[in-house]
């Protein structure tokens, strides 16, 4: 019992953990943190904020942000993974109160057997509630459910200047809208009230439709939005001429009798050699993937985990990209500007770089839940690029031009290199967001995109 306090009250210089422990999902850039705290209890956070000698701190969850928005190079982190308690659940309303380190996987494990599911989920279940709020994540149901932040009723935040503050749409709404999508900069989220949604069971009725052009994709998307809660497309960005892909659409199934077993796949043990992914292997993979799924055209019953989280079944899949890591490029292009999307794909095809994880999705027109929320009406495209130094960065700058001219935006959670100018254009409200930043919080991302301005 006294172990807890014995460890924390001792005036021991903070240990420098192996820097490799705190990376982002893209493993680029790498950052050394001088000061990492791992509170086990929410009541320890105020003292950490008060006592910290680091120039600044940043809450860290499961490290699924791809770029540098979860890093704080040369400064401090607060690892929130031990703050993972469920504080209450009201089965009559479906409102869950939990600490910020609770993971989506955890929520599913506890609440899916009781008939409840996440209102919105990204493509991995290994994110924390705090991270989901801080990045205002979206999912395959954005066109009907909006972002995760729009299902949060109330948030409590540990601040270094004001102590524990609670905010909601009715109470301190500006702080609430700043914290949703606030990249962890408004303080350490202590707990949040989340609206879960009722589902019959773990199964999804899925339909696969192959498509061979962007216009077919758009038709499919428009036609599906009213009938399907979940829509997303996988895109083969390396195919010549017209981009082809597979359109996935699904609804929660009424099937309850079928027995469900969670799927546990292999784990990549180490970073693969860089040469493993080159234009030939990726092209071969994409062709195989397209034909395998095109052959499965039609309806099927699929478990939630393979529908929402196909990549989670290979643990540490990010090591596929080798030691140098990778960059994910996720942008949104206004819907009126489909030619910009075509131009993006053309530039990628010309470069010969590009990946097997092309994802295309039409966002709905839900108003943004947070000041810095990324989703907005339009088409969002996400692509992975192995980090090959200047060559990769140059391609991305070319893509940036197209995005900026089209009036689009880049997703901070995926970014490691966008220019301050593009950030400013993508997130015009950032200057009014600044006043809500906790004076002790900062991140590598934030310094990079704002310090020059």
């Amino acid at each position, binding site marked *: *019992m*006294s*172990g*807890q306090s*014995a*460890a*924390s009250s*001792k005036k*021991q210089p903070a*240990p420098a*953990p*192996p820097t490799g*422990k705190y990376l982002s999902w893209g493993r680029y850039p790498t950052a050394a943190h001088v000061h990492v705290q*791992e509170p*086990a*209890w*929410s*009541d320890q956070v105020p003292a950490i904020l008060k006592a910290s000698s680091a120039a600044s701190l940043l809450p860290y969850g499961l490290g699924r942000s791809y770029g540098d928005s979860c890093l704080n190079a040369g400064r401090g982190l607060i690892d929130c993974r*031990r703050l993972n*308690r*469920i*504080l*209450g*659940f009201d089965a009559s309303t479906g409102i869950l109160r939990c*600490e910020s380190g609770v993971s989506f996987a955890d929520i599913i494990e*506890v609440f899916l057997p009781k008939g409840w599911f996440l209102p919105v989920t990204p493509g991995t279940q290994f994110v924390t509630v705090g991270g989901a709020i801080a990045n205002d994540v979206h999912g395959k149901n954005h066109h009907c459910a909006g972002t995760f932040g729009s299902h949060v009723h109330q948030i409590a935040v540990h601040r270094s200047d004001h102590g524990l503050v609670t905010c909601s749409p009715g109470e301190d709404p500006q702080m609430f809208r700043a914290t949703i999508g606030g990249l962890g900069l408004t303080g350490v989220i202590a707990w949040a009230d989340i609206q879960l949604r009722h589902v019959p069971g773990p199964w999804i009725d899925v339909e696969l439709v192959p498509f061979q052009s962007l216009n077919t994709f758009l038709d499919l998307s428009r036609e599906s939005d009213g009938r399907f809660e979940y829509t997303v497309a996988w895109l083969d960005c390396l195919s010549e001429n017209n981009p082809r892909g597979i359109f996935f659409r699904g609804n929660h199934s009424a099937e309850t009798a079928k027995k469900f077993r969670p799927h546990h796949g292999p784990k990549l043990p180490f970073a693969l050699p860089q040469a493993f992914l080159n234009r030939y292997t990726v092209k071969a993979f994409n062709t195989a993937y397209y034909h395998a799924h095109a052959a499965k055209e039609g309806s099927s019953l699929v478990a939630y985990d393979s529908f929402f989280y196909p990549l989670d079944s290979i643990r540490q899949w990010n090591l596929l990209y080798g030691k140098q890591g990778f960059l994910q490029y996720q942008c949104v292009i206004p819907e009126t500007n489909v030619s910009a999307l075509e131009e993006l794909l053309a530039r990628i095809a010309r470069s010969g770089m590009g990946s097997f994880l092309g994802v295309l999705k039409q966002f709905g027109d839900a108003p943004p839940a947070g000041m810095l929320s990324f989703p907005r009406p339009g088409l969002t495209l996400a692509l992975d690029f192995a980090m090959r130094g200047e060559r990769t960065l140059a391609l991305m700058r070319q893509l940036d031009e197209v995005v900026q001219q089209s009036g689009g935006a880049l997703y901070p959670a995926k970014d490691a290199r966008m220019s301050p100018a593009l950030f400013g254009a993508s997130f015009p409200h950032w200057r009014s967001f600044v006043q809500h930043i906790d004076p002790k919080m900062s991140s590598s991302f934030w310094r990079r995109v704002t310090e020059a301005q």
Partner: protein
Amino acid sequence: MTMPQPTHPTAKQPPALQRVVVLGATSGIALEVQRQLAQRGCELFLVARSPQRLAALQSDLFARGAKQVLTCAADLASISQHSALFDHVRRQFPGYDTVLLTYGSMQDQKHSQASLDILLDELNVNFVSASAILTLFAADLEQRRTGCIAAITSVAGDRGRRSNYVYGSAKGALSLFLQGLRSRLHPAGVKVITIKPGPVQTPMTDHLPNAARFADPELVACDIVRALERRSPDVLYTPKIWRYVMTAVEHIPETIFKRLSF
């Protein structure tokens, strides 16, 4: 007229691990053990110092499937509180079948060398108070002729080392205490399990070098829960490799061992 058939004695045994008292419920290893017990639908009685932390644990474990979660805030290092606490548990949580002691303290050895107060604190928390509270529960279970007592000691108690002998001697003394208690309670059918974890990634060990390489508390908790359920083995090393490591360490001749600085 038929006589009631005598049933086989083992068939009468209630299933193990239904109602568990955890002494030191906020310790790092206890947190993981309790989650796994909650998933099995156990009833829990949690004892720790902080009412605030107990409240968080109560809601968490209840949501995760525990049938009932009772809590009592008490400082187990303070032996004068023991009999009131024990009475409280017996009244509120009758029929408990398992008592798991998980609390402990690991101060920097240098502090214990420099200050008698810290030295005595370490011995009191890890050994004196632990053996006191277990003595109360032991008498109750012995009388009821059922149940299981388990306590977390440490591989550090298997041999006195230069860098950690105060903690080690207290945990070693607790291991000896449990060994004797096991023998005493054997005729009554009460099991006593000595749990000896190697270094585990918990808040207690965060400040140590190489903490990232320590065992995952979830796996350690898995071993502990399995042992509690089977009420076996008598002495559990977890992770298992520590049984072999400690066998080797114990066989190093003292003339050599005293020169080792670890």
